[in-house]
């Protein structure tokens, strides 16, 4: 049952992903991407990552994609115009290369994880029930992953400074 639902959302994600890359209007692409992100959020829920799923909707589909759309609008790219999709040669090249990549990545879906490192099934779900949806992610964030967390904060600061510099009207 879960599996079926999982696949349904998976297909939605893949289908809208395909549409995202093939729609000639950037806005359409962006919207299809949002659909993909939502589908992914659903998948996250199915994978016992409810908090991440929420973040996905809030941060990704909400904030980041809005930013994209904003910029697209700002640059007035939504108007009908020549497509930015490459010609038949580009299509062929992209298909061949992507197909090859997929072919090479195929074993990933089949290989089981090494037994030694796997947790017993349901461990994560149990953990989340114990600590709560947020706490189970937040605790390691401020404990084990303190250093990366701080780096991420500096990263965002740097990005802000950078964005400000680039967007400033006058240097």
């Amino acid at each position, binding site marked *: 049952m879960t599996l079926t639902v999982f696949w349904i959302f998976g297909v939605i994600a893949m289908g809208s992903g395909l549409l995202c890359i093939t729609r000639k209007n950037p806005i359409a692409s962006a919207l299809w991407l949002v659909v993909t992100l939502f589908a992914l959020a659903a998948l996250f829920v199915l994978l016992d990552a409810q908090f991440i799923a929420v973040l996905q909707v809030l941060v990704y589909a909400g904030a980041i994609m809005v930013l994209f759309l904003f910029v697209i609008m700002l640059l007035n790219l939504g108007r009908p115009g020549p497509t930015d999709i*490459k010609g038949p040669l*580009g299509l062929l*090249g992209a298909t061949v*290369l992507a197909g*090859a*990549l997929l072919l*090479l*990545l195929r*074993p990933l879906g089949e290989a089981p994880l090494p037994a030694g490192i796997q947790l017993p099934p349901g461990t994560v779900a149990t953990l989340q029930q114990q600590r709560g949806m947020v706490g189970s992610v937040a605790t390691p964030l401020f404990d084990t992953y303190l250093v990366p967390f701080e780096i991420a904060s500096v990263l965002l600061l740097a990005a802000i400074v950078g964005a400000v510099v680039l967007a400033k009207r006058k240097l």
Partner: protein
Amino acid sequence: MTGTTVDLIWLAPALALLGFVLNGTLALARPTAKTLVSTIGAGVLLAAFGVAIAVFSAFTGLHAPTEAPVVFRYWSWIPVGTLQVDFALQVDQLSLVMLLVVTGVGSLIHLFSIGYMKDDPGYARYFAYLNLFVFFMLVLVLGASFPVMFVGWEGVGLCSYLLIGFWFTEEVNANAGRKAFIMNRIGDFGFMVAMFMIFWSTGSLDFDTVFAHAPTALTAGGTAITVITLFLFLGCTGKSAQIPLYTWLPDAMAGPTPVSALIHAATMVTAGVYLVARCNLLFALAPVSSAVVAGVGALTALFAATIALQQWDIKKVLAYSTISQLGYMFLAVGTGAMTAGMFHLVTHACFKALLFLGSGSVIFALHRAYHHTHSHEDAQDMRNMGGLARYMPWTTALMWIATLAIAGIPPFSGFFSKDEILTAAFARGSVEPIWLVFWGLSLVAALLTAFYMTRLMIYTFHGPNRTGEREQTHLHEAPWILTGPLVVLGVLSAAGGLLNVPELYHGGEWLHHWLEPVTQPGAALRPEAPLASGTEWMLVGVAVAVAVIGIVGAWQLLKPERLVPARNAPEERGLARILRNKWYVDEIYDALIVRPLVWFSRVVLWQEIDQRVIDGAAVNGAARGARALGWANRWIQSGQVGTYVAVFVVGVLLILWRAMG
């Protein structure tokens, strides 16, 4: 060290070298000091001649004939491992003969040169070269080992080169000098290879050691000794102008006439004969090589004589005559008649020097006459001469002596030496019939010799004068400084036969006995070929008859009255033309060897292989290729991110494939 005058032998070459150094310095510093130059130039030679005589007399007093040569080692020259070459001089019977000839004839020619060259701007340089030549010639004949001899051997070649090209501003002269040197070098190549083989066969290069070891170290008649001697003989053909390397000698007449007399007639060109005589033991061990030597000698004698028949340049006639006579000498030494060869060498030195100097005297006279009238006729062309006997009686008389000598008319010197050679060849023919062919060839050559020499005399001194109306008044006998040496040489040419009067005429065969210590080891290895005295007389008769036929025939056949001056002379036809053009040998060499080689070097080796293939295709091609790859990259590095991404993904695919495959 013997404690006698023989010890002073080093003085002879040293004096000549001193002359060179002094005159060379003068040539660069004060070329006008002609008196000083002549004093030094001729003085050192006379002194050297004096040393030679002193050494000779001391040596005769010192030694019983069978004793070993006296070797003086001055310093260790090339000492490396077993190769120990000392700078050493060797005094023995053979080298003494050569010493006397070189210094004696040399002195006369130096004296002659004082007069002959007196107006030349390069006077000091000339004497410097001449002195240097004598130095090297003495090293050649006195050297006690192959390398030391080789010093002289190449040194005389150098001087020959310098003197042939003495008037270097004419391209012909410079070419002739170069040709001489290169041709000689071909021979020297043979000499060197022979030296290498001798060293590794006998362990030494000193004459005494080599000759002592050779009979045991080398199998008689074996390949090694045959190859060695053939290579040695290759050296001789270069230096002594034998087939196939003779072509430089006629061209060498471009040098001043005294040079032709000294170097290209009397001394240097006989070095090959001397070498074979010196190595007679080695040649005795190699019968095949000896036959080759004799055969080449006989063939050259005839071949050069035919060309001499139709030359107009007086010096060219003499040059071919020299080649021909050298052929006789090689026939002699190839036959094993070392004494005969050396004997002819000595007599030839006298009469050929006389002939050259005589012709020099004629040229001098003509040149002076033309100089007076400012005309540019060829002073060496016999068609411009004729009837000179009237103006130059001394010269004419002396030239006739020499002509008779070379033609082999008794009792002049040439008769004895040439007859000895012919006899020896005939005698050897009784053992090995091939020698009868050689004998036949040389007999025909003798006939031709008499003919062309008489032709030369008739056209030059007899008949009407063709020099020119105005010039006739300026024709004179040469001054005493020129004729003086001629007289001395005339005496020697006439009486030189006394040196080795055969037993046939109850002579003492002095030279034969004198050289015996040197020639004996080789002679002992050769087959005996005795001749009955009747046969000998018959041979003498044939030889004399041939000479007389040649002279009389020429006198009868040639019509000097019909001859026209060179300027108006018609082209010859038929055989005459071929002979006039020396059988086209130079042209053939040029077409077959020189031009193809130069073309090959320039076009194939340099332009194609070096420049196009190696440098162009390989070296610069690699550079260009690398650069082209760099440039080609611009097609990909086009600024298009799409391309970059595609290449990137290809890279990803490859890495994934390698990692997971």
